[in-house]
């Protein structure tokens, strides 16, 4: 069914270089001109446990990994036990024969061969790359070059070790898989890299964060690139500090962004409300993991949707949008940065571990990204909260001879505290006008992804689940219409109207069906069935396609 896809799975303990081996494999495939999707599954620990990476590659755009792998490499016993059912038909499993003997599969004495080298714990990853190289018919010279580039510490030992493993594997399954070359090499990036780059492209000046999986790698990426792009990137003492620092920076005109996951976002909500009343443009990246509370730190879920839509006390506009692909995460982050500045209100880019930390080949037209520009004050009296028909007061930043006051209390147009009944309702009305202005603006943009199909049923989904759905439809040869709203607040009901009374199925990763509820309540959508997954794992396209088939029939 998915003959066009080749999948490589590598598993072992944390600290054995599993993820690194996975990304080397991804680069091998992309350098062949193929499309790649890599999903890393790891536990919240530093050593031990069980980690694995799955990389699926195809000759065409691919938007999910597949759990049935053609080549499975297990470093340890636990990995063999975990992935015993993850071997595709005609697939092979290669295991560490120093850990156990198995009837099915090919045993390699990985541990005893690695022990010959000083950095034995780091050799397993090199071994996995050698196994992959042999099975997909790479010459040794090609393999050696890859090892040299990717494992520069102790090159000679690494090459010698790789060569040994290659020779052991080759007689049994050398050149077993034929991977056709593609048209051109594409960059591979994670969702969090796409978000970071999109923010920079959109004009980011400062980023604040407090480490929290799965958002931390935005902080890491931007900290690494800070000097290169002239950014200030700060790891602050708490998410409370983070959001308030961002608001302080926005006051100076700096394009500010923060990133976190559910727990950190909960701490930010007081500041989110401050951004609402001060009309501070701040972009928050909320990358979800399973909750409640600490939940499951390194896995994926979509259960913070309802929270994101209503977070923060009081009436104010929160723009919420969720990217459906890694590529779109780039454009949408720049666009959201622009929107929060255009509309002077906080925005939340809602995503998930599955998008944040998975990586895929992308083609990005950099010039297409938005550049965040606010409406600026020109002349006359300056009033920070001047009433305008569209609700948007022109901005001015210090240093200026004019007085610019941002105020957390309800205030008059000058930003001075007020408790006057008329002024209170006046200022509410002024801020509320921004929603209508925003809707008018969004009506001109493409903010819902609709792929017209042939079935009488429609599938609704959003966020990274969109990628799983597209891959499931492809591998199951299914052809319903798919609808994925990118904006969740305001929800583009004007685009969803036509589907209202049709046969609709929702696919999401929330145990209570938060997205389903939103569609029913806000768009009045008739929803016949919801396919849910809430075990922390993203959907597998094969499994999902069977579920969709059942529901469609």
């Amino acid at each position: 069914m998915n003959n066009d896809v080749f999948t490589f799975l590598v598993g072992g303990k944390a600290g054995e270089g599993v993820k690194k081996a996975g990304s080397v494999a991804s680069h091998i495939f992309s350098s062949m001109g193929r499309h790649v999707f890599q999903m890393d599954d790891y536990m919240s620990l530093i050593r031990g446990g069980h980690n694995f990476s799955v990389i699926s590659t195809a000759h065409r755009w691919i938007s999910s990994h597949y759990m049935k792998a053609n080549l499975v490499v297990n470093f340890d016993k636990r990995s063999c036990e975990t992935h015993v059912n993850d071997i595709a038909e005609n697939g092979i499993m290669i295991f560490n024969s120093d850990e156990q003997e198995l009837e099915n599969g090919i045993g390699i004495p990985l541990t005893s061969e690695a022990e010959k080298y000083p950095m034995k714990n780091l050799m397993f990853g090199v071994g996995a790359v050698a196994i992959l190289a042999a099975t997909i018919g790479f010459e040794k010279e090609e393999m050696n070059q890859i090892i040299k580039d990717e494992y520069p510490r102790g090159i000679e030992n690494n090459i010698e070790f790789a060569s040994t493993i290659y020779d052991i594997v080759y007689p049994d399954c050398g050149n077993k898989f034929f991977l056709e070359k593609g048209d051109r090499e594409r960059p591979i990036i994670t969702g969090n890299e796409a978000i970071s780059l999109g923010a920079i492209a959109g004009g980011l000046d400062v980023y604040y964060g407090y480490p929290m999986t799965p958002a931390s790698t935005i902080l890491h990426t931007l900290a690494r690139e800070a000097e290169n792009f002239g950014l200030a990137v700060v790891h602050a003492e708490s998410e409370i500090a983070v959001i308030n620092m961002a608001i302080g920076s926005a006051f100076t005109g700096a394009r500010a962004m923060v990133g976190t996951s559910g727990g950190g976002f909960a701490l930010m909500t007081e500041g989110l409300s401050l951004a609402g009343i001060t009309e501070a443009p701040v972009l928050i990246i909320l990358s979800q993991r399973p909750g409640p509370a600490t939940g499951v730190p390194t896995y994926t879920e979509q259960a913070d949707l309802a929270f994101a839509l209503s977070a923060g006390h009081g009436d104010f506009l929160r723009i919420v949008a969720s990217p459906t692909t890694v590529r779109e995460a780039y454009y949408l982050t720049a666009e959201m940065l622009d929107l929060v500045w255009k509309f002077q209100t906080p925005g939340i880019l809602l995503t998930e571990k599955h998008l944040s930390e998975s990586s895929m080949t992308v083609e990005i037209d950099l010039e297409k990204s938005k550049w965040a520009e606010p409406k600026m004050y020109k002349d006359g009296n300056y009033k920070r909260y001047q009433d305008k028909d569209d609700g948007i007061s022109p901005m001015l930043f210090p240093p200026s001879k004019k007085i610019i006051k941002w105020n957390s209390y309800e205030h008059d147009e000058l930003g001075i505290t007020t408790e006057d009944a008329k002024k209170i309702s006046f200022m509410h009305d002024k801020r509320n006008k921004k929603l209508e202005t925003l809707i008018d603006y969004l009506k001109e943009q493409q903010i819902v992804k609709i792929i017209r199909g042939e079935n009488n049923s429609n599938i609704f989904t959003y966020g990274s689940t969109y990628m799983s759905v597209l891959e499931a439809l492809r591998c199951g040869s299914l052809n319903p219409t798919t609808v994925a709203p990118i904006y969740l607040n305001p929800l583009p009901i004007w685009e969803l109207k036509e589907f209202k009374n049709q046969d609709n199925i929702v696919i999401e990763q929330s145990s209570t069906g938060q997205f389903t509820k939103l569609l029913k309540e806000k768009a009045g959508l008739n929803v016949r069935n919801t396919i849910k997954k809430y075990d922390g794992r993203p959907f597998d396209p094969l499994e999902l396609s069977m579920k969709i088939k059942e529901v469609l029939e």
Partner: protein
Amino acid sequence: MEDLKTGAEITWCPGCGNFGIFTAIRNAIPILEEKGIKRENVVITAGIGCHAKIFDYLNLSGIYGLHGRNCSNSEGIKIANPDLKVINFSGDANGLAEGLTHTMFAAKRNQDITFILHNNSVYALTTGQFSPLAEKGWKGPSTPRGSYEEPFNPMSLMIEAGATFVARSFAGDIKHLTDIMVQGVEHEGFSFIEVLQPAVPYHKWAEYRERVEYLEKEPETYFEAIKAAKEKHKFTIGVFYRTTRPVYHKELYDDHNPVTQKISREIRLDKIRKFLSDK
């Protein structure tokens, strides 16, 4: 001087120590201007409490933040545009209860901001509860039998946290307070100024005036400073500690300024192209 007032109705109690702080800051700004600091480069932040009303009265730009969080606003302002001089007003509950972590970390980082702590040792605006600097035994509506906690020692706390200018002054000595404020703003690094500030429904000016003493000699070393902070009674005013240490924004990006030296879109896109070609 008058032009530093917004004209908003002042609602501090008559005789409140906050008037002294308001006068001193309006004295300090012109002096700072004479020293070359432009008025438009001075921005203020306030938290929530009686101290914070100064935001509405003082005709300077800034942020009237959340209770306990304005120190983070101040840091965010300084980090984004280090050309700005940030004066951060705070009450003792705003800065040492709800906002304690932020105050400590701003000192730890040696953020180049001036933190003015209005110490009235009480939650005045919320009707007289005990505060982080209230004497043990303070009887307020939340502690009818008297509070059970010892107050912080703000001087030793801030020296320990990493502040590089630590001083105490008194709202009843405008000259001293003005002078300390000027020194604090001029100091490059985290300046912490505690201001003894009676809240008239709860305190008597006479009690302050009787007890206020001047620190006879500015300590010269860290250990002398700690010793003075620990040994002198809490109505001792003067500079307890002054030192130099690299400021946070310079550690972060040297002489760069993220706002005024922003890298253009074209250069950014070129660099992103390069980033992607390496992936």
